[in-house]
């Protein structure tokens, strides 16, 4: 395999790997309230997340910022908790989208630091950081888009069979995210 291929695969696997599902669950939380007709909102949301995590991943890869790893691994479940609470608190109501975009961008910054913890471990002195970073980030984006599409398909299937249970679906999904995040947070805090 070329090293580009390997870093790309590692990027994809970093999101899809069931050993660490925090990023996957976050994407689930972002996409949970929306349907295909909301695609514009979803594109902005996913882009906000992408811009956020790309910025901090790059800054950290080039050693411009350095943040305590444990702090980041603790903050990530907190971003999940807050996203789930925002979705739950406003179930069925209109969200203030500008605020949500900003929040997801900010949370993207935190997840990018999480990605960089893994990415930096892959690097050694003779590594070509720029091309590795590009391939790894591209892998993350591809995995992210795959997850959003799968969630949208599940959502539409749900709507097809249970068109009147929108609220129930959002509560069910975000409740799941909430409790997973709580478990991750406890793990991050107590398994050092």
């Amino acid at each position, binding site marked *: *395999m*070329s*090293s580009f*291929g*390997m*870093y790309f695969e*590692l990027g994809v696997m970093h999101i899809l*790997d069931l*050993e*660490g599902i925090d990023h996957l669950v976050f994407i689930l939380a972002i996409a949970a309230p929306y349907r295909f007709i909301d695609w514009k909102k979803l594109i902005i949301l996913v882009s906000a997340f992408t811009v956020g995590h790309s910025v901090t991943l790059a800054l950290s890869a080039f050693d411009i910022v350095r943040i*305590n*790893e*444990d*702090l980041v*691994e*603790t903050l990530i479940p*907190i971003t999940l908790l*807050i996203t789930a609470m925002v979705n739950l608190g406003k179930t069925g109501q209109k969200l203030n989208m500008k605020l949500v975009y900003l929040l997801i961008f900010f949370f993207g910054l935190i997840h990018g630091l999480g990605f960089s*913890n*893994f990415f930096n*471990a*892959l*690097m*050694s002195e*003779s*590594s070509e950081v720029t091309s590795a970073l590009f391939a790894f980030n591209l892998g993350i984006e591809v995995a992210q888009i795959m997850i959003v599409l799968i969630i949208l398909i599940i959502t539409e299937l749900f709507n097809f069979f249970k068109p009147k249970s929108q609220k129930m679906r959002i509560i069910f999904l975000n409740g799941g995210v909430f409790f997973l995040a709580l478990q991750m*947070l406890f793990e991050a*805090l107590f398994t*050092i």
Partner: protein
Amino acid sequence: MWKGFIKIGVTAILLMTVSMSNAHTFHVSVAQMKYNAQNRTLEIAIKLFTDDLEDALTTSFGNQGWHLATPRQLPAADKYVRNYLKPRFAIKQNNRTLSWNWIGAEYNMDAVWCYIEMYDFDHEADLEWKNIIFFEIFNDQKNIGHFDILDHDFSAYTTRKKRKQIIGYNK
């Protein structure tokens, strides 16, 4: 009420986190392998996280008081590191395991660089790379390998599910 609760919670968590130790969360090693055409050897440098290596040494040999990368480092540490790596890192070509020579290691607080040399490398034959370092202590260990053989560059990684990689030139 919610806001106050969240503020207190987040502050408490931040304080707890900052006071905690600095253990890294990902388990990765990186090996660079370069073919030396003049000596027909493969020159290998393996980067291992120091704390992971100490854990692995203790699991294999009991706690000998390693203190790697400190002035109190166990004088025989090198030998243990070599004996730890020997059965876990190998290259096979034409159904033959390449013979292996330990050069030494460089101990830093965060990472240890281990240097190995393998003889009679055939730059035209496919190779089977085995790297099972730390698999006995971490489920999520990934061992990255970069090969630089004349004009060919390859990368691969091993995991507990895929402990060996075949690297061929015609693929």
